[in-house]
């Protein structure tokens, strides 16, 4: 082990090697399915078949439409809370451990309270009202 | 803490503030009168100080005020007066008062009397402050105070026929001076790194001890540059002709009469005593450039077609003498420089007053258009003008003579550490310059005053010297004569202080 080695992390990498293998297996599965499909399927494309489906009538206009900004606000709220989680989870494992206690608990509630204010604000501004 | 000296600065400042406060305090009608009164009070204070001055101890700083102002950067509010300051303070107070007085009757072309009076008062604060400051930074501060008001005076009330030109002149003036003074500030800071004090008396007493020679030379160059721009020294003079020519009468008078002296005063007050080693190293160059200035000024005058420009260029020559005197590093030379400064203030002040009067009456300062025959047209005005011109060319018996004489004398026998040969050559050249000066003034007098009146009858109705002009000019004329007959009036005051500063 050289000076530039991280101690005690061998198992860490080994664990994720397994994850990688699982992913590879999944990809292999999909590939196999597609392969089988390629062998078995017929292939007779026609114009109609390749047309975008709009309940039987010819498609009108572009398929890629502008979407409502509201989705953006949603996405952002989501990001806020997803990020909130990265603080919540590490804390969750230790807050009741010896050396911590009520103060730690309160702190996290304050933190969540701050986020809740944001939620409150969003609700008040009508972001959460689906029209 | 000397109350009178504080008042000397506070009175004009308060006057300016009251004026800006609005027309409720001082109605429009009486603004100019108010200004004149403030100027008179200031002058009285200055006279009072002169009366109370202990002439037996002229080398000592009197009326001292020395309190801590900004301890963080070691700056003290140190004011006072010694023999070098006293004539300058008197000159300033006098000229400012005369200008204000002049304004009461002769409304400036730009209108807005209130603003002009307020600016002149602020100018007076800056000028007086420069002459009584005994802390390098306070000195610098007052040195800077005059810039902006002077800029406005030139840019707003200057030559009414050339708006762009007067603004350009004003801007050139302020940029030159500021660049100079910024570099001067660096010099002060260099001094501080060695001496760890900004106090001028302290620094003068030490006489450069504790500051390495290299630093001294560097500081001398930096400080010298800043002062030389203001003085002005050839080749840094190029702001001057324009500024003088475009400024209104009061502006020109104060500019030539006092502002230039701030530079030379700075040489005597700061440059010589604080960095003597540096000064010794730089002095020959200063002397050389001063001599060039004398010759250049004289030659340039010969080719000028505009009255005020001509007088302005003559200032370059006169200030060359002043600088030459300083550059000799001798008591005689420096005394001469100071005396020449005072004399130049009086005489050129007078000349600019007269030139302004001529310009106002004729609507032009162009010599070609003025033509000749002023004796016939306005005999008294012409008389005063000739008096001024003759005084300016250094006629013995008038104030202009002694200063230049002493400066040349100083060059004849410069300080021991300087190369005498060089100074002898310079002296000869300067003497030549003096002759040229005489020549062009005489030519000027002949062109303007003698001969037949070429201007049509349209202007014949213009008045000759008015009452206010008499009142404003008389003191200048009188003093020129008095100082010419009795130069000791100034020299006895300055000499002890100069010996202290040069010798110390």
């Amino acid at each position, binding site marked *: 082990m050289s*000076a530039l080695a991280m101690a005690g992390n061998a198992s860490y990498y080994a664990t994720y090697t397994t994850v990688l293998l699982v992913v590879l297996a999944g990809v292999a599965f999909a590939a196999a399915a597609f392969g089988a499909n390629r062998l078995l399927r017929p292939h007779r494309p026609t114009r109609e078949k390749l047309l975008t489906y709009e309940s039987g009538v010819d498609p009108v206009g572009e398929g890629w439409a502008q979407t409502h900004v509201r989705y953006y606000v949603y996405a952002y709220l989501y990001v806020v809370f997803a990020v909130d989680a990265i603080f919540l989870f590490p804390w969750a494992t230790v807050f009741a451990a010896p050396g911590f*206690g009520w103060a730690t608990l309160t702190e996290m509630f304050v933190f969540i309270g701050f986020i809740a204010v944001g939620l409150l604000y969003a609700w008040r501004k009508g972001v959460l009202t689906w029209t | 803490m000397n109350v009178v000296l504080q008042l000397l600065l506070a009175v004009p400042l308060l006057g300016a503030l009251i004026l800006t406060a609005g027309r409720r305090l001082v109605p429009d009608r009486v603004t100019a009168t108010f200004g004149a009164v403030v100027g008179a009070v200031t002058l009285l204070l200055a006279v009072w100080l002169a009366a109370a001055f202990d002439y037996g101890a002229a080398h000592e700083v009197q009326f001292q005020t020395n309190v801590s102002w900004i301890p963080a*950067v070691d700056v003290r509010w140190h004011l006072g007066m010694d023999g070098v300051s006293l004539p300058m303070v008197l000159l300033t107070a006098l000229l400012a008062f005369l200008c204000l007085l002049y304004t009461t009757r002769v409304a400036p072309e730009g209108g807005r009397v209130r603003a002009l009076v307020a600016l002149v008062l602020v100018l007076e604060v800056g000028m007086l402050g420069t002459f009584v400051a005994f802390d390098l930074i306070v000195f610098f501060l007052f040195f800077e105070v005059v810039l*902006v008001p002077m800029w406005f005076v030139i840019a707003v009330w200057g030559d009414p026929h050339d708006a762009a030109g007067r603004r350009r002149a004003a*801007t050139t003036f302020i*940029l030159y001076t*500021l660049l100079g003074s*910024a*570099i001067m500030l660096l010099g002060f*800071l260099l001094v501080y790194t060695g001496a760890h004090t900004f106090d001028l008396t302290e620094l003068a007493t030490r006489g450069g001890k504790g500051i390495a020679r290299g630093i001294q030379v560097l500081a001398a160059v930096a400080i010298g540059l800043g002062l030389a721009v203001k003085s002005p020294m050839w080749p840094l003079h190029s702001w001057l002709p324009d500024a003088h020519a475009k400024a209104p009468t009061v502006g020109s008078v104060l500019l030539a009469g006092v502002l230039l002296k701030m530079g030379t005063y700075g040489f005597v007050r700061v440059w010589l005593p604080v960095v003597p080693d540096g000064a010794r190293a730089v002095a020959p160059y200063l002397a050389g450039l001063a001599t060039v200035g004398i010759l250049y000024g004289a030659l340039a005058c010969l080719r000028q077609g505009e009255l005020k420009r001509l007088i302005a260029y003559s200032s370059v020559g006169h200030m060359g003498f002043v600088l030459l005197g300083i550059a000799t590093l001798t008591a005689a030379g420096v005394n001469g420089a100071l005396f020449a400064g005072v004399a130049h203030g009086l005489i050129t002040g007078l000349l600019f007053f007269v030139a302004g009067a001529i310009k106002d009456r004729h609507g032009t300062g162009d010599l070609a258009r003025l033509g000749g025959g002023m004796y016939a047209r306005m005999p008294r005005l012409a008389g005063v003008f000739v008096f001024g011109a003759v005084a300016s060319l250094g006629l013995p018996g008038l104030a202009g003579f002694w200063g230049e004489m002493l400066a040349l004398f100083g060059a004849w026998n410069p300080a021991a550490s300087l190369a005498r040969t060089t100074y002898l050559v310079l002296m000869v050249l300067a003497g030549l310059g003096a002759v040229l000066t005489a020549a062009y003034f005489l030519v000027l007098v002949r062109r303007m005053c003698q001969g037949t009146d070429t201007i049509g009858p349209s202007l014949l109705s213009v008045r000759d010297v008015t009452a206010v002009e008499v009142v404003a000019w008389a003191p200048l004329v009188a003093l020129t004569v008095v100082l010419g007959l009795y130069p000791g009036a100034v020299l006895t005051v300055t000499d002890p202080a100069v010996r202290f500063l040069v010798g110390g």
Partner: protein
Amino acid sequence: MSAVASFVQPVPWLVVSPPLAVAVTALLVLVVDAFAPARRRGVAPWLALAGLVAGIALLVVSMAGSSSWTEGAFCAPGAGAPWQVAACSYVADPLTWTFQFIVAGGAAVVVLLSAGRGWERRPPPDRPGVRSYGEGAGTLGAGVPTGEYHFLLLASAAGAMTLAAARDLITLVVALEVVSLPVFALVGLRRGDRRGAEGALKFFLVSVVSVAVMLFGVSLVYGVTGTMYLDRIARALSPAGHPGVVGPAAIAASPALPGGDLAAVAGLGVMLTLVGLAFKVAAMPFHFWVPDTYVGAPVPVAAYLSVVSKAAGFVGILLVVGWAFPGYVGMWAPIVGVLAAATMTLGNLVALRQRNAVRLLAWSSIAQAGYLLVPLAASNGDVRGTTLSATVAYLLVYAVANLGAFAVVSLTVSTGPGRLLGDYRGLFWRRPARALALGFFLLALAGLPPGVLGLFGKFVLFRAAIDGGAGWLAVVMAVNVVIALAYYLYWTALLFRSREGATEAGPAPDSAPAAAGAEVWAGPWPARVAIGILVVIAVLLSVFPEIALGFLAYPARA
């Protein structure tokens, strides 16, 4: 781990209270604005102002209550290797207090600028086809939601106040982001404003990239030293636990490291970290966002950017350089010097040809940033002494003068045309008090009497340069001061010019101002009050420069 009784530290509330008060007020403003009846919406600026004033009051209280001039919070005890001294994440010392004061005061002025009724006398009735402007808020103009605006402003101010107290890289980085993020939004907050959006985009992209670069630098520094505390970094980067003695060569010998030649890595980390901060203060190659952003933003926001945000950047630089990297002075000082010279020269030269008032102020503020870097470039590693006091003194002076100039511009823009310099022609004859104030602030920025405070600000910078042996930089700065004078003076002169059309030469009747002044609306009163306060402060600082210059003298030397 098990031996430790408690991980919970008591929080010294008083010490952390100033930024906390501002942050809580920010939230309060948001909630109140969202839930108060429409009638009461006007309360937001006053609430914000109250929060900032409370912050300043707490500042004074905590300063008065401090016995040692240094109060730490969130500390780690010393442990292990000798370089692992006890270190705190949040330290309140005179530097902190000064900056917090500048920030809170500056923000308060900006709040005042945007308070009160703007130029909409009343909202037009909601009719089809007519765009409703709502109530114009102060000099901000219409289209800026008040509650959000003040929330963002206070949030950013709270971040800046925290930044001044940060003594570890994590707090520093987070605080820096808290300063920046709300400002991006502030710049583009005005509804339907193309220019605001463009300004925000440029500002945002540049800033975000710079933060990323800086973070990479931080990560490298952390990698070399293994700590985030500035003090410990300094010690880890120098041998035997003496901060600021020796440079990179010491790293190999450092007890913090398992060995290896990491000097280059550490050096790279230092440089990248500084690059990120250089963006923040808009130093030379990283300045280009400034003019566009200032012009695009509402004027009060530009004022905030130019003062508070920039102050935050400078305190960041001071902290990083002075607390963490003093040992690398040989590396960063020359670079900072060159940057300073280039920044001020470029800023001034470009400012010369500006015709837009805000853009001129933007370029001039770039130049001022160059001046502000001078003491740093001249420091010989002893950043906490003269360098610090000179920078802080000038920053204080700059803050007052620049805020003042922006305030007047803001007021003028909100009461009529005021974007172009030409719009200021003859302002004195219409609004004498305003013009005098602007002239005063401009001259203070130029450093000329009567703006004595500016003069002394420049003076301390010069002194720092000369003391530090950076004479060449002092000369460059001197030349620059003169260049800058040209445009400051040009503008000042415009104020007193006779109005267009009036005869240039003819004597203007003295009664003209009265008649002309009556036409122009004076503008929202809080903005005028703000200008008044700034004038008073500026005059006070001019008469007693000691207030600004002596601020940091005692503890820095102690």
